[in-house]
């Protein structure tokens, strides 16, 4: 995976995870164009589109778009599963997640993602293990506060 973007229906960015090195300017340009392209899609269209030399896989969950850029040899259908798994993880962590959770706890959204994907690849296929790791880290954080 080259990058993942989360954005609202108004085009506001809620999370950006880049797995390739690009300048801030390039990232902004890509984000702007891609958000526009995806928001222009009609509801009945499929989740895949070709954009520049990348394949884009996107899915809308309530008011949030989850959008991944994958390479030519990557499997689009499994990418949909990756997106879905991430949403499930967020849901489990926040308890019935909604966009507001991700806005007010954006750093947590990143931490969760970083326990699921690493360097753009899936690192853990057990939902339980991912959530356990986050739990441990949160505990560690709390514990250190007491010291």
């Amino acid at each position, binding site marked *: 995976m080259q990058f993942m973007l989360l954005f609202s229906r108004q085009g506001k960015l809620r999370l950006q995870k880049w797995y390739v*090195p690009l300048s801030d300017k390039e990232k902004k340009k890509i984000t702007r164009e891609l958000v526009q392209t995806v928001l222009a899609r009609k509801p009945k269209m*499929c989740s895949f589109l070709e954009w520049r030399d990348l394949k884009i896989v996107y899915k809308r969950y309530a008011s949030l778009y989850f959008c991944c850029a994958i390479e030519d040899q990557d499997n689009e259908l499994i990418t949909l599963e990756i997106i879905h798994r991430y949403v499930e993880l967020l849901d489990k962590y926040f308890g019935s997640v909604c966009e507001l959770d991700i806005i007010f706890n954006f750093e947590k959204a990143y931490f969760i993602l970083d326990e699921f994907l690493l*360097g753009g690849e899936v690192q853990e296929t057990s939902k339980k293990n991912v959530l356990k790791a986050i739990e441990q880290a949160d505990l560690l954080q709390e514990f250190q506060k007491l010291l």
Partner: protein
Amino acid sequence: MVASSSSLKLQDLIQEIREAKTQAQEREVIQKECAHIRASFRDGDPLHRHRQLTKLLYVHLLGYPAHFGQMECLKLIASPRFTDKRVGYLGAMLLLDERQDAHLLITNSIKNDLSQGIQAVQGLALCTLSATGSAEMCRDLATEVEKLLLQPSAYVRKKAVLTAVHMIRKAPELSDIFLPPCAQLLHEHHHGILLGTITLITELCERSPAALKHFRKMVPQLVHILRTVVTTGYSKEHSISGVSDPFLQVQILRLLRILGRNHEESSETMNDLLAQVATNTDTSRNAGNAVLFETVLTIMDIRSAAGLRVLAVNILGRFLLNTDRNIRYVALTSLLRLVQSDHSAVQRHRPTVVECLREPDGSLSRRALELSLALVNSSNVQAMIQELQGFLESCPPDLQADCASGILLAAERFAPTKRWHIDTTLRVLTTAGTHVRDDAVASLTQLIGGAQELHAYSVRRLYSALAEDISQQPLVQAATWCIGEYGDLLLEGSCEETEPLQVEEEEVLALLERVLQSHMSLPATRGYALTALVKLSTRLRGDKSCLDVELQQRAVEYNTLFQKYDHMRAAILEKIPLVERGGSQVDEEAKESKETAQLSEAAPVPTEPQASKLLDLLDLLDGPSGDAQHPRPLDPTPGSALIHLLNLPCAPPPPAPIPNLKVFEREGLQLDLSFVRPPGTPTLLLITVTATNTSGGDVTHFICQAAVPKSFQLQLQAPSGDTVPAQGGLPMTQLLRILNPKKAPLRLKLRLTYNHFGQSVQEIFEVNNLPVEAWQ
């Protein structure tokens, strides 16, 4: 000193930003808070540093600058507190990618964190390294990561493996370090580590043929692993919709694909397993289909058994019927990739593919179109074109051009009869005329010209189409050309194949005038119409003389009109000369010619330079039987140019009883002459030069020039093109009009220049064995 109490908590900041009603308001809130944050970085309590950075990262997400936080990231990463590291590393990943100068400064911290004992901290370091580590950093830290591959903690091992993947991507020479541990890692039971290992091996194999060879030995082991995953009972932890760890399955299948590619033995080893996965995977949900899809991709890419390939294509065929349009999409994409190599297998699914043309989603219908066009062959062409014509009528505009040219190409390749071909082309021009490519007109006129038995039919159909709609330029151009060529057939009698149509001369002329006058007609189209009018003047039986005068007048009028277009580079109109019989009116032509120009796609205008070349040619013709005359166009006065007729796609004139003559052949390039003596003009001879190329190389920059004896008058029409494509591609034709008032024996000299097989060629020769019917 800034009172920290006036700085906001993260949640409050976010709230305030959201409440801002305008962009300006938002900016104000953020700028105010950033000032606090900056101050806090400078002299604030280090304990709160992580909170300040978190706020900064939030505004960065909204698009505001945050570079002043870069050094804070470094400080936080170096702190012993986990909270600080967590935010610090996040900040590093967002603000400190490898393009930043400060990037390398985190190397030391990462190194320290990798080797200390808390796995959560090691995890943070590995994560940051694999997300943004530069090549240099990777080289520095490779051995640290290698050590971690042997760590007791599975959590750390799984992250270390994927970090190794990133390191190899950035610094491929590190493959040497990370190849050896793979064998051991493949024995892991932890799905995450196993998955990471498979990913690592895949990366190694893609980068090095030696690694590929090395890991081929492990194919049996990989097959075993996959089989275990698939057949092991339901593991709630790793399953999705009843499919065991689809992520792992897909990754293994992908590795198998790479290992089995072009390798019989490996392919055979995985054959059974692939068949098993292909038949047993639950396809009710996306997870199963994802695995199935990867299986199909692998089957098609390795040296699999024929039966397995058919199975794979059939799976794709089933995908096409799936209600989930995502599944249909990947099926269409994959089938498109397979249509060349496994044509007959894909053909079986043609009806389903055609159904997909009706998809409302543009990206699906586009693929269906491409695939449909690839599936047209001689046995299904009529049915397929029927479907595609239907699609053309209703498809979105951005697909019309591709659909139209696709249909025309398919028609050219597989037309069962010429009449069907003409009908099909006509229908495309009527439906999507504005989207067809430029050469469609040329192709149609060639097609019609070469089918004598269909001239009457064609001209009637085109006339009717034109009468209905004069707006679609390619149709109008083709129709007017046809009317010009075969107007006589239009007016006389009836044609069995069309409905009876009584057409009067006046109607025809009126229609052509309408085309001329219409503001929708391009300059090129007007040219066609004018030429048609001119040609008709030689063919109609009506009162020709007043027609001629009328035309002369028209020509002058239009010349003025056309001068308006002179500034347009792309399509400048040519001045119309009149076709006269006999020599006396030739002077009139000289008076009336002004600047010349050229119509769009056809041929280059012979200009002054060519005039001098003709001179050369003529010098050579000064031979025993008297001097040759300069072809009429040559005029010493500057500014006057050659007279030519408007460019037309040259079609062979109506066949005459005079036999054709092959006059030249060299390395596959052949020149034939065909002769026509139009009835009613005994002194006029029309010669069509046709150049065909059966060699393997294109002939380019082809120029043919001619010279005749003094008493003749020669007009060279512009050729249909200057390229004769290889392998029997579209021939080039050129019309020569020769007036022979004295009925002298015809002599003809030709000069050819062209490029072929990288050589420039010049040939000059006199045509021998000219048939006597050409001048008697």
